[in-house]
């Protein structure tokens, strides 16, 4: 089959690789209909996250049709059109029982490699670094999905492929961030970062009842998307002396009740700390440019919630004292998609949620290298590049 592979830092290619097959009895193989870029891919493409190997098929946000099913797959069948959360859950372990699916205790084949880093390994994920499992990714014509009855969610007839695609990752990740905020009527939620995850966090906060949602970014087209497609207010941080002051002023001096950080380790920013971060990251003295994370902590009201969705490594100068003295609650996770996908598909079917606007660029898988370049450079207003493998 054809697939997009990682051959080294900033070295991608579409190549012919072996087809996947059912390996365990609860597996299925999907023919991938659509698969999309994710900002977290850029971290290993740019070389900030180690653990990739030459030839790795990557990609973790996708939907497709089941073409092969193992003998212990009972609730899904060949021909089903399904969307699949990016983290792989077994449905049988302590964490899955508590709906913390991205912490699944049994699906990471390289758990021993990750244990020294995290203490306790995460679940496996498709198409990411090897400490996260080393599973083949979705930027391919076919992809193997373990534990299909747990991880494959049929897409309702009224929901088109493009809308359902983002329910694989961007939508549940963003919605989870909003859910972490424990939104009450009248609340104000600020969202740092207007990429697909940030926009879906903003949309999620609206659905969960936030009175005001304020999205912070610097790219005009993304801020326009936040206003036009989500109904959020916006702040352009590149045109503001202090985001913290702007948020304080617009909330009557109290600050937002919760802040969702949806940027991650390659964040941009202004000010001296941002320059220091950029220099340290360039010489590999620090993995993260964490300006948005620090800003989120500073901007949140006392006693509020900061939900961290961006992918980080090791962050310098994290304002722990601010967290303590303001009594903040920090909540973070990779997406527990299986908890949210059924609800999100219903919101799509009911028209309460719109996602297809995230697909600003569509192209065949053969053009995926160029797609990633456009996505990385945020060229031409790119929010997401979507690939069609077949």
């Amino acid at each position, binding site marked *: 089959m054809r697939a997009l592979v990682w051959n080294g830092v900033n070295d991608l290619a579409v190549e012919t690789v072996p087809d996947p097959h059912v390996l365990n009895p609860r597996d299925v193989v999907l023919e991938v209909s659509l698969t999309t870029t994710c900002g977290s891919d850029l971290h290993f493409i740019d070389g900030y996250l180690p653990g990739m190997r030459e030839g790795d098929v990557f990609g973790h946000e996708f939907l497709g049709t089941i073409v092969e099913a193992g003998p212990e797959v009972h609730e899904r069948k060949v021909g089903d059109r399904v969307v699949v959360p990016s983290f792989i859950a077994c449905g049988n372990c302590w964490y899955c029982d508590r709906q913390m699916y991205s912490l699944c*205790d049994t699906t990471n084949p390289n758990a021993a490699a990750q244990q020294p880093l995290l203490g306790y390994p995460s679940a496996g994920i498709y198409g990411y670094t090897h400490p996260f499992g*080393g599973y083949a990714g979705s930027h391919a014509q076919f992809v193997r999905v373990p534990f299909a009855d747990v991880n494959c969610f049929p897409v309702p007839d009224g929901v088109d492929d493009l809308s359902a695609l983002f329910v694989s990752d961007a939508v549940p990740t963003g919605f989870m961030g909003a859910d972490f905020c424990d939104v009450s009527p009248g609340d104000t939620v600020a969202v740092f970062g207007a990429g697909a995850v940030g926009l879906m966090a903003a949309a999620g906060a609206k659905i969960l009842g936030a009175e005001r949602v304020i999205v912070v970014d610097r790219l005009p087209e993304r801020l326009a998307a936040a206003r036009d497609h989500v109904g959020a207010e916006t702040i352009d941080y590149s045109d503001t002396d202090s985001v913290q002051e702007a948020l304080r002023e617009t909330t009557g001096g109290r600050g937002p009740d919760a802040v969702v950080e949806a940027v991650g380790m390659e964040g941009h920013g202004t000010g001296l700390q941002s320059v220091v971060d950029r220099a340290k990251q360039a010489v590999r003295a620090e993995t993260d440019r964490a300006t948005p994370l620090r800003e989120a902590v500073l901007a949140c009201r006392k006693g509020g919630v900061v939900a961290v969705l961006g992918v980080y490594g090791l962050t310098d100068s994290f304002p722990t004292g601010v967290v303590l003295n303001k009594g903040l609650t920090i909540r973070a996770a990779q997406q527990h998609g299986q908890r949210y996908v059924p609800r999100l598909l219903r919101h799509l079917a009911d028209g309460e949620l719109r996602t297809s606007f995230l697909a600003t660029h569509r192209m065949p898988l053969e053009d995926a290298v160029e797609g990633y370049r456009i996505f990385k450079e945020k060229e031409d207003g790119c929010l997401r590049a979507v690939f069609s493998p077949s």
Partner: protein
Amino acid sequence: MALPRTVLAGARDAATRALAHVHRSDDGDGGGTGPASSSQTLTVERPAERVLAALRDPEVLSRLLGDVGTVSAEGSRYTWALGADHVVTTLSESVDGLTFARTTPEDVAEPEDDTEGGTARAVEVWAEFTVTPTPDGTRSQVRARSQLPGGTAEFTVLYRLRALLQTGEIPTLGPQPTTREEDR
């Protein structure tokens, strides 16, 4: 099994190194003053008797080893085939666990009398599993100890054991690693 080749090679090397450290044991529990051991502990959401039954089963042990090797058994005699190396161990059980120990009288350079008037034998703990049930009996805390350094092998075995007992499967990539065919 899904481990990268470098990890597999490392595990085999570590096993070979550990085998070179056959030591004398005077305390009868496989401990003694031999090379440092490592251990890992995981909770398995299954009763202790199921865990112990799995650990006695050579087919299960083979699945836990993955590409590193296979295990066969005749009674309490278990043979671990690790590449070109074959390690023979004897299974002994206690109330709360089981031990696979390697007994190698031929490795004793200067035989000496033991308390029974026989010949002292070098005993090496190959792998030791302690299984402690939770008060309600539904779960087990399983501790694995061996002379392999670092704890990686113990963690890998316990992780796979937990996955197998709780899901019926061991997470695997092979024979479909993400890397190219020639890298397998």
